[in-house]
């Protein structure tokens, strides 16, 4: 019998060994580190304050994603409209919100009372609680990014689809809702999933205006007990749980979209 001998790859083995040893040493040094008290991590991992912050983080992300998606569709449609004013307005919005740091936007919304003491008959600080300011700042920022994602999705749908819908007597909005957007979804979903994961993590920025999210909660605790690293590890764990769930969800949705045989070029 002839024997098949695979190519020997000594460097690959050596490289893998170096990475494995480095990872083991890092893990060991954290585990053995006298400055980390593992008991503290365990004590706070499921503490009510942290869990309340976790809930706020999730609600913040979901609300901002909802606002961002609706706004994104609106901005994308404006960007593709026949009116130069609408196109310009949408472009300006994206330019402004994408071109400035989210942290700055959050600080502006959180401190809006310094600019306008009253909004209508209401006191700005009563209306824009840290949570509301956080939702607005994240949602508006998300909208700018979603606009570009949705626009790319709409453009990817064959023009003949719009022709066919209009020829059947559909109005533009009906054609968009029933024919164009469902097909655009396949192109929109992968970057929108990334965008949502990025948003989950960006919620932590609202801790600068005491937005009440998980990082706010962790910092409140650590500023009292001075176990900064332990509480950051507690938060890290929960952020990883959230982003993992979001990744799985994204994967599942993309697979379902792929199943129905929906293809942009499927009819050609």
């Amino acid at each position, binding site marked *: 019998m002839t024997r098949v001998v695979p190519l020997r790859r000594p460097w690959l083995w050596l490289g893998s060994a170096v990475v494995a040893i480095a990872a083991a040493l890092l893990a060991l040094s954290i585990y053995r580190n006298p400055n980390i008290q593992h008991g503290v991590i365990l004590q706070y991992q499921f503490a009510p304050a942290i869990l309340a912050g976790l809930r706020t983080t999730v609600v913040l992300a979901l609300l901002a994603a909802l606002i961002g998606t609706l706004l994104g569709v609106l901005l994308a449609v404006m960007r593709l409209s026949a009116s130069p004013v609408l196109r310009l307005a949408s472009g300006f919005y994206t330019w402004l919100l994408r071109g400035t740091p989210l942290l700055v936007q959050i600080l502006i919304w959180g401190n809006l009372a310094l600019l306008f003491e009253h909004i209508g008959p209401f006191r700005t600080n009563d209306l824009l609680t840290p949570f509301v300011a956080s939702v607005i700042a994240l949602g508006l920022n998300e909208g700018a990014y979603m606009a570009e994602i949705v626009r790319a999705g709409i453009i990817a749908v064959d023009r003949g689809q719009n*022709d*066919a819908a*209009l*020829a*059947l*007597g559909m*109005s533009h909005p*009906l054609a968009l809702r029933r024919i164009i957007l469902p097909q655009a979804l396949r192109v929109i979903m992968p970057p929108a999933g990334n965008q949502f994961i990025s948003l989950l993590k960006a919620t932590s920025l609202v801790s600068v205006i005491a937005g009440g999210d998980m990082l706010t909660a962790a910092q409140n605790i650590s500023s009292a007990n001075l176990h900064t690293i332990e509480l950051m590890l507690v938060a890290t764990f929960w952020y990883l749980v959230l982003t993992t769930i979001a990744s799985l969800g994204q994967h599942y949705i993309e697979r379902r979209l792929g199943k129905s045989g*929906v*293809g942009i070029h499927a009819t050609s």
Partner: protein
Amino acid sequence: MRPPEPGRPMLRAQDVHKRYRHEEVLKGIDLEVASGEVLCLIGPSGSGKSTFLRCINHLERIDAGRLYVDGALVGYRERGDCLYEMHPRDICRQRADIGMVFQRFNLFPHLTVLQNVIEAPLKVRREAKAEAVERARALLARVGLADKADAYPSRLSGGQQQRVAIARALAMRPKLMLFDEPTSALDPELVGEVLSVMRGLTEDGMTMIVVTHEMAFARDAADTVAFMDAGVIVESGPPEEILSHPRHERTRGFLARVIGARA
């Protein structure tokens, strides 16, 4: 062929002009299609045939002239000396009565065959679902695709997709059917099945305007053949006259090229 029924014309085009930026694509089209008549539009590519078809249901705006379908001005309202473009809602209502079949089928890939056919009856005409489904199944049976109702378009051959597209257009009970090179994107062996469905429609007395390169179809299915070149209708008349005894040099040249290429 059966003689065109008397009465008002289904389509009346008067001096229709269309320009894209610097190029005039339609340079004054005058045309009448009687109710029940089948008109085949032939001509070299770029002659404006498809553009004219798209003007008939206002997918393209015209720059001058008038288009009437079933006596109603398409896309505009005339008041005094002015033409006012219609509200989109009214344009939709007009389009719903005009069926259109495209070169590249343009079925909705995210919907099944049946859903493709009932979508507009449900959402535009607001028909009851049971009724729409029943009629859709009858139409699919008529185009020979009763067994494909639950398939997605990507699972069908080009010929089958085009037959679904015809059923989809018929589901709106149109007064007029427009066909934009319905067999040009098909493999040669699939052309026949689509043409035979279209022949069936002509026998039912459907008014049809067909942009086509299928000279055999034009010869035996059309009441009138019109030859278009460079944005004008060069000549039109009964198929026998235009296809066998064309009067214009341009028509002769075109037919020689087309028939030469087929032989």
